[in-house]
C-alpha cells in the first residue's frame, strides 16, 4: 500500500505514456519530457505562490503584525491578486534601453532557474532528468544566471541597474566558489556526480537510529552550513540582498522592470531559492530518505518537500531576523573565511574517508575542522578593525 | 664486546651542542633562558657521563668501540667512530663536572655583561666539542673536534672584542696553535698514508692496534713527533707556550674552563690517547719521540715556574703555573707514567679550575682589578674565596696527604726517578716543585694577607652562584685524593686495568718526605721573602716586589716571560714580515711589470689593427650597412604593428600550406 502511494506519480506517468503505445520512440521521449516539465512547473509555481504569501505571513508574525489576511481565507488568495495586478500593469521599457537585452534578461534568468530544478530527485525514482553529471549541470545552468543579471543591468541603461548588477555578479561569483567547493566533499565521498547516487549513498541508519545523512558528519555539517550561507547569497536573500538594497540602489538590476517582467524576476529568484535548497537537501539532508526507519511508510516525496519547506522556513526566518551586510564585509567573508573553510571541508572529508568512515574518522575530521576554524576565526577577529574601505572603479 | 653505552655516547657531546644552537637563536634579552639551557645541557652531559662511567666500572680494561662510515670515495671508505675506555670516561667526567661548576660560576661572573647569551652559546659549544674530542675513536674525528675546540677558544678569548688586547690575544692564540696543528695534520696524513686507517681501535685493524702499528715501522717516531707538535701547540709547551698567558684576556671562567682545566689538557690527553705510537720502538719505554716529550716537558715546567714568580697579574701567574703543570704531565707521559700523568691531569683540572674561579671571584670582588700588588687583606673581606683558594693553592703546591695534587705529583716523581736514560729530569722537576710552592705562596700573601691596598678596600664577597662552585671544586680537590693515595691507588688501577688492593703501609714512602721537605721549603721561602710584600720595607717602596728590589735585572727578565715573545718578534715574525714585504714588492714591481709589458705589447698591436680596420675594413662594412638599412626599411613596411595584419598573414600562410599539401598529394 505505502509502496503504491510512494510511486503514485511515477505510475501515473507510466500509464499516461502507455496511452501512446505504438508511436515512434522520439515521440514518447518528447512527451515524457513534456510531462516532467509540466509537472515541475505546476508544482513549483504553486509552491512559489504559496511561499510568497507564507513569507509575508511569517515575516509579519516575526514583526508582530498580521500580514495579508484580506483575500480569501487567511489571505491565501493573495498571490492570485498579486498575479492579476502584475499582469495588468503597464510594461515600461526605458527609451534609451537596449530593448532586446532588456527583454531577454528576465526570460533567461527564469529559464536558468527552472532548468536547475530538473536534475533534483524529488522522491524514489522521481528525478525528472537523470543526467550523469547532474551536479555539474546544476552549477553550469546556475552560472548562466550571472549573465542574465548582467543583461538586465546593462539592458536597462540605468546607473542603479548597472550598480545592482555589478554587485550581484560580484557576490555571486565570490560565493559560487564556496558553493561548488562545499558540494565537492559529498561528490568525493559518493564518488559520483549523479544526484540519485548521492541520495542512495545516504540511505540507512547508524545504530539503526541516526540516519546516514552527510549533515551528521563533521565535514558534512560544516559544508552544509557553508552551503546554506552561499545559497543565501546566490539567491540574493537577506542578509545578502545587497544587489537590490532598496535603501541604496532602488531595486538593483530590477529597477527598470515593471509588470510581468518584474514578476518573472521575482519568480526566478524564488525558484532559484527552491533549486538551491533542493540541492542542499539532496547533498546533505539525505534527499527523500525518511529520518527514521519507523517513518519510512510516509511517501518519499513528502519527506523531500518537508525538508525543503524546513529550509525555506529558515530562509524566511533569517530574512526576518538579520539586517543587511555591507558589501566589503561580505566579500571579505567570502574570500577570507568561506573559501578556506570550504577547502577544509574537502580535507576533512578526505580524512574521514581514509580514517575508515567510522567513529575514528568522525573524530579526526572534527579535529581538522575545529583547528582550522579556530585558527581562521582568531586570524579574522572581527573586533579588530578591517582595513579602511577602498573602492576600486575602473574609469 | 660491544655495549649499548657506546651506541648512545654521541648524546654526551650532542647535548651541549644542541643547547648552544638553541641559545644562538635566542635574543640578547633572554639571559635567564640562555643560562638555563646551557646548564641544562651540561647537566644532561654530566648525567650521561656518570651513567657511562658506571658501565666502565664493571670490567677492568673496559673498552667499547662504535665505528661508522662517514663517506666513501672510490673504493675507500672514510670511517669515524667513538671509543669508550677508562681514559675517556675519566676525562668525560672531569670535563663535564668542572664544566658544570664553571657554567654556574659564569652566571654570577658574567651577570652584568651585555652579550651574556652569546657567552653561554660559546661555552656550550666549547663543552660539546671538548666532550666529543674525548670520545673520538678516529684521529680525524679527534682533529675535527680539536679544531672546534680551538675555534671556541678563539671566540671566547676574543669575547670582549671591543678590547684591542683581547682581539690580539685571540688572534695570537689561534695562529700559534695553528702552527702546532699544521704538524698534527701532517702527522695524520702521514699516518693515513702508512696505515690506511685513522681509527684508533677497529677490531685489531686500528692504527693503535698491533696490526696497524706493524705497518708503521720506523716512521712511527716521526709521526709521533708531528702529532706531538699539535699537543705542544694546544697544551702550551715550550716553543709555542706564548699564547696561553695572553689568552687570559678572555673572561675568567673561560680561562678556568679552557685554558686551565680542559682544552690545554687536550694535548696531554692526545699524547696519552696515541701513546702506542710514541712507545713503538726497539727499546720499549724509551723511544726517541718519548725522549723529546720528556725534555720539552722539563723545559716547559721549569721555565714557566720561573716566569710565574715575577708576574703581577693574578691570572697570568696561574696561566704560567698551568703551563708548568702541563709540562710536568708531559714529563710523566714521556718517562712512561701514563697513568700518573693522566691522574695529575684530572686532579689539576679540578684544582686549577678552582684557582681560576677563585681568581675570578677576587677580580669580581675588586671590581675588575687584576694586579695582585693592588690587592691584599682579602682574607677577611672574602672568607669563602680565601679558604677555597687556599685549598687550591695547597693542592697545586703539592702538599701531601690531604690534597689531590700532592699524591699525583708524588706519582710523577716516582715515575721520573726511575727513568733509565737520565736523572736530570728528576732533579729539574724537584726544583720545579720548590718554585711552584714559592710562587703560589707569593700570590696568596699578596692577595689575601697584609692590609687592603688600593681597590681592595671596597672588596666584597661574591654571590652564591660563584661561591657554590668554588666550594664544590674545593671539596673535589680534597676528596679526589681518596682514590689517588698509594695505599689504595684505585684510579691508577682503573686507568691501567690492574687490580687494586688496600695496603696502608704504602702510604709512607721516602719520596713523601722528599716532597714534604721541598714543598715546605718552598712555602717557607715564600713566606720569608714576601712577608712584607705590599708594604714599604727599609728603602723599598710599597709597589716594588721584594725580588725585584733584590735582583732587578733577573726580575725584569722573568716578568717579561724570558723575552720569548720579543725573540719571536725579532725572528719569526720579523722574518714573516720581511717575506711578506718581499712578496709585495715582487708583486708590485716584478710581476706587475711583466703583466704591464704584455699589456703594452697588446696595446701596440691594437693600435695597429685599429688603423687597418679604420682604413681597410670599415669602408666595406659601411657600404654593407647602408645596403642593409635600405633593405630593412623595405621590410619594416611589412611590420605594421597591427596584430590583425599579422593574424591575416598567418591565415594566408596556413592556406598556402594547405594548397601546397593538396598539390603534392
Amino acid at each position: 500500500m505505502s509502496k503504491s502511494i510512494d510511486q503514485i506519480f511515477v505510475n501515473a506517468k507510466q500509464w499516461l505514456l502507455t496511452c501512446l503505445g505504438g508511436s515512434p520512440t522520439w515521440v514518447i521521449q518528447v512527451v515524457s519530457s513534456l510531462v516532467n516539465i509540466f509537472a515541475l512547473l505546476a508544482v513549483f509555481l504553486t509552491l512559489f505562490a504559496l511561499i510568497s504569501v507564507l513569507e509575508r505571513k511569517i515575516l509579519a508574525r516575526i514583526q508582530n503584525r498580521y500580514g495579508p489576511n484580506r483575500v480569501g481565507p487567511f489571505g491565501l488568495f493573495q498571490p492570485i491578486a498579486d498575479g492579476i495586478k502584475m499582469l495588468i500593469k503597464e510594461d515600461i521599457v526605458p527609451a534609451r534601453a537596449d530593448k532586446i537585452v532588456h527583454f531577454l534578461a528576465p526570460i533567461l534568468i527564469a529559464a536558468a532557474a527552472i532548468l536547475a530544478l530538473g536534475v533534483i530527485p524529488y522522491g524514489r525514482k522521481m528525478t525528472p532528468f537523470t543526467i550523469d553529471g547532474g551536479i555539474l549541470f546544476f552549477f553550469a545552468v546556475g552560472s548562466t544566471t550571472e549573465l542574465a543579471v548582467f543583461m538586465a543591468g546593462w539592458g536597462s541603461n540605468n546607473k542603479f541597474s548597472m550598480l545592482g548588477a555589478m554587485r550581484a555578479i560580484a557576490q555571486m561569483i565570490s560565493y559560487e566558489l564556496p558553493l561548488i567547493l562545499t558540494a565537492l566533499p559529498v561528490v568525493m565521498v559518493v564518488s559520483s556526480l549523479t544526484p540519485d547516487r548521492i541520495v542512495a549513498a545516504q540511505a540507512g541508519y547508524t545504530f539503526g537510529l541516526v540516519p546516514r545523512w552527510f549533515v551528521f558528519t563533521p565535514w558534512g555539517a560544516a559544508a552544509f552550513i557553508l552551503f546554506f550561507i552561499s545559497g543565501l547569497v546566490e539567491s540574493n536573500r537577506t542578509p545578502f540582498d545587497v544587489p537590490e538594497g532598496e535603501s541604496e540602489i532602488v531595486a538593483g538590476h530590477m529597477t527598470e522592470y515593471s509588470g510581468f517582467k518584474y514578476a518573472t524576476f521575482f519568480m526566478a529568484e524564488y525558484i532559484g531559492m527552491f533549486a538551491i535548497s533542493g540541492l542542499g537537501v539532496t547533498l546533505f539532508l539525505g534527499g527523500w530518505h525518511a529520518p527514521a526507519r519507523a517513518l519510512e511508510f510516509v511517501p518519499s516525496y513528502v519527506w523531500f518537500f518537508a525538508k525543503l519547506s524546513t529550509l525555506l522556513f529558515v530562509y524566511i526566518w533569517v530574512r526576518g531576523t538579520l539586517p543587511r551586510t555591507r558589501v566589503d564585509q561580505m566579500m571579505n567573508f567570502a574570500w577570507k573565511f568561506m573559501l578556506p573553510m570550504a577547502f577544509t571541508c574537502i580535507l576533512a572529508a578526505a580524512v574521514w574517508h581514509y580514517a575508515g568512515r567510522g567513529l575514528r574518522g568522525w573524530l579526526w575530521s572534527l579535529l581538522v575542522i575545529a583547528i582550522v576554524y579556530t585558527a581562521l576565526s582568531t586570524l579574522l577577529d572581527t573586533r579588530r578593525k578591517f582595513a579602511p574601505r577602498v573602492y576600486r572603479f575602473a574609469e | 664486546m660491544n655495549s649499548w653505552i657506546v651506541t648512545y655516547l654521541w648524546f654526551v657531546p650532542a647535548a651541549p651542542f644542541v643547547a648552544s644552537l638553541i641559545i644562538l637563536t635566542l635574543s640578547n634579552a633572554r639571559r635567564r633562558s640562555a643560562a638555563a639551557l646551557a646548564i641544562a645541557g651540561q647537566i644532561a652531559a654530566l648525567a650521561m657521563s656518570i651513567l657511562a662511567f658506571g658501565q666502565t666500572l664493571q670490567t677492568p680494561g673496559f673498552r667499547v668501540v662504535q665505528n661508522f662510515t662517514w663517506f666513501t670515495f672510490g673504493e675507500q671508505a672514510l670511517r669515524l667512530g667513538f671509543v669508550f675506555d677508562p681514559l675517556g670516561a675519566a676525562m668525560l667526567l672531569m670535563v663535564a663536572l668542572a664544566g658544570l661548576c664553571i657554567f654556574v660560576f659564569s652566571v654570577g661572573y658574567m651577570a652584568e655583561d651585555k652579550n651574556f647569551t652569546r657567552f653561554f652559546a660559546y661555552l656550550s659549544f666549547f663543552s660539546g666539542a671538548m666532550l666529543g674530542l674525548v670520545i673520538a675513536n678516529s684521529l680525524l674525528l679527534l682533529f675535527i673536534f680539536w679544531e672546534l675546540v680551538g675555534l671556541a677558544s678563539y671566540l671566547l678569548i676574543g669575547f670582549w672584542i671591543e678590547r684591542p688586547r683581547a682581539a690580539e690575544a685571540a688572534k695570537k692564540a689561534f695562529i700559534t696553535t695553528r702552527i702546532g696543528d699544521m704538524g698534527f695534520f701532517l702527522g695524520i696524513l702521514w699516518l693515513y698514508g702508512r696505515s690506511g686507517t685513522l681509527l684508533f681501535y677497529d677490531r685489531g685493524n686500528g692504527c693503535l692496534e698491533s696490526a696497524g702499528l706493524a705497518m708503521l715501522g720506523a716512521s712511527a717516531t716521526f709521526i709521533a713527533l708531528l702529532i706531538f707538535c699539535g699537543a705542544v701547540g694546544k697544551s702550551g709547551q715550550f716553543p709555542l707556550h706564548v699564547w696561553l698567558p695572553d689568552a687570559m684576556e678572555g673572561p675568567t671562567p673561560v680561562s678556568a674552563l679552557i685554558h686551565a682545566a680542559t682544552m690545554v689538557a687536550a694535548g696531554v690527553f692526545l699524547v696519552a690517547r696515541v701513546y702506542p705510537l710514541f712507545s713503538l720502538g726497539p727499546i720499549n719505554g724509551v723511544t726517541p719521540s718519548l725522549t723529546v716529550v720528556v725534555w720539552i716537558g722539563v723545559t716547559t715546567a721549569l721555565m714557566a715556574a720561573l716566569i710565574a714568580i715575577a708576574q703581577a697579574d693574578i691570572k697570568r701567574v696561574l696561566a704560567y703555573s698551568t703551563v708548568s703543570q702541563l709540562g710536568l704531565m708531559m714529563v710523566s707521559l714521556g718517562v712512561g707514567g701514563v697513568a700518573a700523568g693522566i691522574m695529575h691531569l684530572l686532579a689539576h683540572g679540578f684544582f686549577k679550575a678552582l684557582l681560576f674561579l677563585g681568581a675570578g671571584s677576587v677580580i669580581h670582588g675588586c671590581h675588575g682589578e687584576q694586579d695582585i700588588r693592588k690587592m691584599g687583606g682579602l682574607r677577611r673581606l672574602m672568607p669563602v674565596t680565601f679558604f677555597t683558594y687556599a685549598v687550591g693553592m695547597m693542592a697545586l703546591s703539592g702538599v701531601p696527604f690531604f690534597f689531590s695534587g700532592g699524591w699525583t705529583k708524588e706519582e710523577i716523581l716516582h715515575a721520573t726517578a726511575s727513568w733509565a736514560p737520565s736523572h736530570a729530569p728528576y732533579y729539574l722537576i724537584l726544583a720545579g716543585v720548590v718554585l711552584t710552592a714559592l710562587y703560589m705562596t707569593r700570590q696568596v700573601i699578596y692577595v689575601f694577607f697584609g692590609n687592603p691596598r688600593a681597590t681592595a678596600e671596597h672588596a666584597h664577597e661574591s654571590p652564591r652562584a660563584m661561591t657554590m662552585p668554588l666550594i664544590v671544586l674545593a671539596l673535589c680537590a680534597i676528596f679526589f685524593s681518596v682514590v689517588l693515595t698509594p695505599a689504595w691507588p684505585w684510579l691508577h688501577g682503573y686507568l691501567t686495568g690492574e687490580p687494586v688492593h688496600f695496603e696502608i703501609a704504602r702510604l709512607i714512602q721516602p719520596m713523601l718526605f722528599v716532597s714534604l721537605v721541598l714543598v715546605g721549603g718552598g712555602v717557607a721561602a715564600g713566606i720569608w721573602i714576601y712577608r712584607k710584600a705590599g708594604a714599604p720595607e727599609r728603602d723599598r717602596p710599597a709597589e716594588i716586589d721584594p725580588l725585584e728590589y733584590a735582583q732587578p735585572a733577573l726580575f725584569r727578565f722573568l716578568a717579561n716571560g724570558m723575552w720569548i715573545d720579543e725573540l719571536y718578534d725579532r725572528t719569526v715574525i720579523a722574518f714573516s714580515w720581511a717575506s711578506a714585504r718581499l712578496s709585495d714588492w715582487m708583486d708590485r714591481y716584478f710581476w706587475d711589470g711583466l703583466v704591464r709589458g704584455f699589456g703594452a705589447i697588446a696595446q701596440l698591436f691594437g693600435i695597429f689593427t685599429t688603423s687597418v680596420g679604420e682604413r681597410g675594413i670599415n669602408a666595406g662594412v659601411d657600404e654593407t650597412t647602408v645596403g642593409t638599412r635600405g633593405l630593412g626599411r623595405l621590410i619594416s613596411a611589412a611590420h605594421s604593428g597591427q596584430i590583425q595584419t599579422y593574424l591575416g598573414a598567418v591565415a594566408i600562410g596556413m592556406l598556402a600550406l594547405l594548397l601546397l599539401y593538396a598539390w603534392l598529394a
Partner: protein
Amino acid sequence: MTPTLQAFLIVSTALFSIGLLAALSRRHAIFILIGIEMMLAAANLNFIAFWRFGPHHQPPIGVMIALFSIAIAAAEAAVGLAMVIAVYRHYRTTNVDQLDQLRG
C-alpha cells in the same frame, strides 16, 4: 540517416572561419579574443568529433584534450581580457588599429 564526420568537420571549419573573421575584421580588441575563443572551440569540436567517430573510445583521449583545452582557453581569456583592460588604461583606447607602437 545520421550525420557523418565530414558534416561535423565542416561545421567546425565554419566556426573556425567565423572566428578568424572576427579576429581579422573587427577593430575592437575584445573581438580578437572572441574570435580566438571561437577558433579554439572549433578545434575542440574537432577533437570530440574525431574521438566519437574513431574506433577507440577508451581511454577518452579526445575528451581529455578538449577538457584541457577548455581550461587553457579560460586562462587565455582571463589574461587576454586583463590585458585589454590594462591597454585601455594606458592608451585610453581598445582599437587595435591605434595600438601600433611596434610599427617598423
